[in-house]
Structures are given as structure tokens and as C-alpha cells.
């Protein structure tokens, strides 16, 4: 069974919700990526999304783009990132599923089959490709299915019901529900329309529904807890990577990252 499917099966059986932090690979460097992944897993993160830095990420806000730029300025190569993920996942007792998030051109460059083989060997169980809409995702989804690799697609507030139906059919692992119209980043409060959107999606699919884009605070998580199967927090985590790149801040950033994950896991699952 794919580790993502196993995770949500177990969480649902226990009545718990997934907390899924996003971390850019290679920011500020690969050694920190390994430490940060290990720290968030130890702090209770259920699944980690690893951002594959890209030079022109149109779906991401300024914080994540700046993070990608830092990683690429440090000459990050995708092959080296995969090697680090492999080492991370090979640590004794590691059981946190990881998924990649990246722009489609990085996959196209390697070829879908080669990318998926390398990603799986690195311990990744699926990928979110925010610039690959369902119309263009057919081939990737087919190759992914052959390798038990999950193509995780996005549904947004502007998605029509007809499109949403197509998207959830092509999607695997979980549905990435975008809570707001716009790019990744933090917002003060969650939009009201999310409740209706989740209800409509529940009628279309049994896949877990996880909400991202604009989630950053424990209050947001509390609002969402009863509605969804998991939440994804990106920008707030990436700020800690930025901090880790400052002289003498690595340990502090790691401690704060851990504390932040613990707080969000508890907000999502208040009763142990």
C-alpha cells in the first residue's frame, strides 16, 4: 500500500487529522534540509511536502520564491536533493511519508517515468504539481499509476463543479484544496466559502481532503479541524528556513520549527 493511503487509513480510524508542513529542499543547504525534516517528523508532522526549487514558480508567493532563489543561488541540483531525501528516509524508525511539490517543467526535463523512479528511490510517495492542470495531467497520472506514485491535484474556489469531478477522478493520495483565490502565503483568517467547498467535494470523492494556501496560525487550524482530513502549512515554515540561513541562527530556527509544528499538531488534534 502506498504510504499516503496507509497514513490516512490509520488517521481516519483513530479520528485524527494530518498536519503537513512544507519545506523547501536545499534552503539554506541540504544538511539543514535533513535536520529540518528529521525535526518536524519528531515533532509529530504526519507527512512532509518537499518543495523542489524552481527559478520561475508562478504559483508561489514571495516568501517561497525567495526560498527557492536562495537554494538555487547555492547551486542546488535536483539529484543532490533526492540523495539527501534518501538519506533522511533511511534513518532508523523513519515512517513519515514525503511528497514533492514542484513545477511541471522539472518533471518534463527528466521525463515522467525517470522522475518518478528517482523520486520513489528518494523516499517520495507522490507529487503535487501546481502548474499541471487536469487537462495536461493525463500522461503523468498514467505513468504515476504504473509506479504506485500519487499524482496530487488541486481544487480551488474558482474550480467549477464539472472540473472538480474530473480533478478528483485523476487525483491520488489526497486532494489539495486551495482555500483562497491567489498564491501561497499567509492570511489573517480563513474564508467562509471553504465550508461549502469541502461539502461539495465530499459528495464527489472519498479521498482525504487537505487544505493549504493561506493556513499559518493555530486559530486557522482550529477552524478547519472538523471539516478536513489535513492541513498544509508552507509559508510560516519557510520563514524558519530563511532564519536558519542567518549566521548563528541554525539551532534556534530548528528549535522554533519544531515548536511550531508541535503547536499546530496539537491545535489540529487537541485530545491525544
Amino acid at each position, binding site marked *: 500500500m502506498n504510504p499516503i493511503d496507509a497514513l490516512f487509513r490509520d488517521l481516519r480510524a483513530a479520528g485524527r487529522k494530518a498536519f503537513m508542513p512544507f519545506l523547501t529542499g536545499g534552503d539554506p543547504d541540504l544538511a539543514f534540509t535533513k535536520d529540518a525534516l528529521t525535526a518536524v517528523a519528531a515533532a509529530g508532522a504526519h507527512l512532509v511536502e518537499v518543495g523542489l526549487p*524552481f*527559478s*520561475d*514558480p*508562478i*504559483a508561489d*508567493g*514571495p516568501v517561497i*520564491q*525567495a526560498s527557492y*532563489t536562495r537554494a*538555487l543561488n547555492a547551486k542546488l*541540483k*535536483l539529484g543532490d536533493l533526492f540523495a539527501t531525501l534518501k538519506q533522511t528516509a533511511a534513518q532508523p524508525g523513519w515512517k513519515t511519508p514525503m511528497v514533492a511539490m514542484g*513545477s*511541471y*517543467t*522539472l518533471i*518534463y*526535463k*527528466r521525463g515522467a517515468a525517470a522522475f518518478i523512479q528517482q523520486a520513489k528511490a528518494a523516499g517520495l510517495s507522490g507529487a503535487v504539481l*501546481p*502548474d*499541471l*492542470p487536469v*487537462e*495536461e495531467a493525463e500522461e503523468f497520472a498514467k505513468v504515476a499509476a504504473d509506479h504506485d506514485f500519487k499524482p496530487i*491535484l*488541486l*481544487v*480551488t474556489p*474558482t*474550480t*467549477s463543479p464539472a*472540473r472538480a469531478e474530473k*480533478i478528483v477522478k485523476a487525483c491520488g493520495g489526497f486532494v489539495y484544496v*486551495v482555500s*483562497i*483565490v*491567489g*498564491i501561497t502565503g499567509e492570511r489573517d483568517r480563513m474564508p467562509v466559502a471553504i465550508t461549502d467547498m469541502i461539502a461539495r467535494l465530499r459528495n464527489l470523492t472519498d479521498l482525504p481532503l487537505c487544505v493549504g494556501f493561506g493556513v499559518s496560525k493555530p486559530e486557522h487550524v482550529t477552524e478547519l479541524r472538523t471539516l478536513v482530513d489535513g492541513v498544509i502549512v508552507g509559508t510560516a515554515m519557510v520563514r524558519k528556513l530563511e532564519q536558519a540561513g542567518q549566521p548563528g541562527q541554525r539551532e534556534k530556527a530548528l528549535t522554533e520549527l519544531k515548536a511550531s509544528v508541535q503547536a499546530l499538531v496539537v491545535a489540529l488534534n487537541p485530545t491525544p
Partner: protein
Amino acid sequence: MSSTLANAVSAVPDARGRFGEFGGRFVPETLMFALEQLTDAYESAKHDPAFQDEFRRILADYVGRPSRLYFAERLTREAGGARIYLKREDMNHTGAHKINNAIGQALLTQRMGKKRIIAETGAGQHGVASATAGALFGLPCRVYMGEEDIRRQELNVFRMKAMGTEVFPVTSGSRTLRDAVNEAMREWMSTVEDTHYIIGSAIGPHPFPMIVRDFQSMIGQEIIEQSNEQIGRLPDAVVACVGGGSNAAGTFYPFVDHEAVELIGVEAGGHAKGLGTHAATLMHGQPGVLHGTFTYVLQDDDGQTADVHSVSAGLDYPAVGPEHSYWKDSRRVRYCSVTDNEALDAFYLCSRLEGILPALETAHAVVETMRVASKRSKDDVVVLCFSGRGDKDCAEVARVMTERDKAGRQKTS
């Protein structure tokens, strides 16, 4: 024409926005609704005589179309071969072809009931064109422009601001056109409900490459009519510069089914051949995705977009419109590149011989036009799409020439 209508080179894009294998939509789901809405609005406008009449009326009364097709006698004598004609897009209001598309898309904005426009710009010509359309139609306008380009194109920044447009400096990445497109697309994702993004080149997700091409196609259509009137037949060759490729798309598109007409696209060769020293995407790039379309892209072995260089801010782009990728692979258009230095020399040559200062983008096409003309017989006719005037580049040319002279003196001393 030997090809039938259905498989003609011009019968693109298909319903998915594909030009052969190129094009399509590679954008976040958030934008799909807006792109479908835009596709529908454009399809209905395209077949609405009232819309087309209004577009033509503004182009005639405000822009000053049709632009002239002018026989450049002294350039012809200098090249010593085919007769050279200039399609004078530089004589349009605002000084370049960019205004054609900006007016068309501003009309579409009104038709969709949207209240505000945003745009990106490199050399500033599309920014100025959008600012102009914003002023003309009373639409608030914001233009994204790389910090480096703001420095290079001071005059156009002033023009935009004078017309009430907000010029938004882009400080991410290489601070040029490519980053301005990223920022504009990002903004559009959060303002899509009341804002239209007037993309300036034949790039981006479907339907933009098609819309921009169509709104520029009067260039090629007028060349056909004017050459029939002036020389009694079609030209033998047509030359245009290619950055994103909007003036070339509009110039070439009405010609692609006329197989006897040679079409030549000219890219920016910068100052060397290595990645990062030029912007010759079709000469040196590989297929990939940038700014929502599948097309040739200058990229490294991981698929990261490469840095580009050109003396011309308008050609300084690491990808190219998907239809050009299609024309390259189907061999309908021949693409070549011209270096910074060759373009600078042509800037002065054209100014001295014809009394017309070309934009640095256009100067690239002047170089290849002279080459093509020199190899062809005196009975042949070569048309150059004179995409823009050079006023905006004067300060930058002066600066670069001073540097070049200094470097030249150091080499000889």
C-alpha cells in the same frame, strides 16, 4: 497554396491551445476559470462584427493605421541586392506595434466587464501601450517592470507614469522581463475576478498566444494588401525580430500558407554563445514550460530557466511564443540570431541612411534584412517589420557605445 484548409500551417491552435505539440495551459488551477472565460469572450468577440468594427475604428483614428509600407532606397543600395521595404510599425501612436494588441485586449477587458488592467513590460513599449489603452478607456492600470529595465528605459517609465499608470518595480530573480511576467501572473491570480492581464507578447497560457497573434495580424495582412498595390505581388521574403515574438507572429501569420514567401525570425545573439550570454531561445533552447506554455526555453540540465542577455530589453526573454516553436519545428520559418554589436551598428546604419532611428529590437532584424537582401537578386523584394522606433533606446545606446569605445581603446593600447 498546396495545403488544404484543415491541415494548413495556419490552422492552429487546436481547442486545447496547442500549436502542434507546443502551447497549452500549464498554470495553477486558480487561473483556469479566468482562461476559459477569456477564451469564450474572445471567441464571441472574434465573430462579432460590432467588436471588430470598433477595433478597426480605433486603430484607424487613434493609432493611425494602416502603417506605411515604405521603400528604403538607400538601405537597398547599401545591401546591393533585393529591394528592401519597411513596414512602419514605428509610426503607430506610441511608437511600436505593441499598441495594436493593447487596444484589442482593452476592448476585451470592457467586454468581460472587468474594471482594471495589469501588464508586464521589458523595453517598456508594451507598458506604454497598456498605459495608453488604460488612459483611453479609463481603466486603472498597473505595469510590472524589472528594476534593471526601469534603469535602461527611463523615458518609457516617465511616459507610463504621465498617463496615470502605476509602474511596479520587480526586484525578484534577474529583475527583467521574465520576472515581470512572473509577478504579473501572480498578481492576476489574486485579482482575477475584476482584473484583466494584458499580456504583451505571443506567450503565456492559451488563449494568450492566439489572441496576441490575432491582434497583431493586421501587420501581415496590410503588408499583403500594400505589396499587391505597390509591387503587384507578394514579397519574396519577410523578416521580423523575435523576443517573445508578437510582432513576428502578427507579421508571419497571414503569410504562413503562402509557401513561396520566405519567413525569417531574428533572435538576440547577445555577446557570446554560452548560456546566459544571449537570448536566442530557438537557436539554443530545448522544449520545456515557462509562464504557462510549453515551448522552447533556455534552460540548464535540471530544467531551471537560464539567465539571458541582450542589449535590447525587449528581446531579453528566455522563452518564445509557442507558435514560433511550432514554425521552427515544422520549418516554415527560418530562425537566426544577431549579436549586440551587429545590432548597434545597424542602429546607426539605418539612422544615417534612412533618417529613421530603429528600436534596438528592430535593429536586430535590420541586420538580417541586409544580409538576406544582399544575397537575393535586384528583382526580389524583402519586407522588414520595422517594429518600433529607437527614441527609447538613445540613452542606453550612448552608454553602451561609450563602454564599447573604451574597451576598443584598451584592446588597441
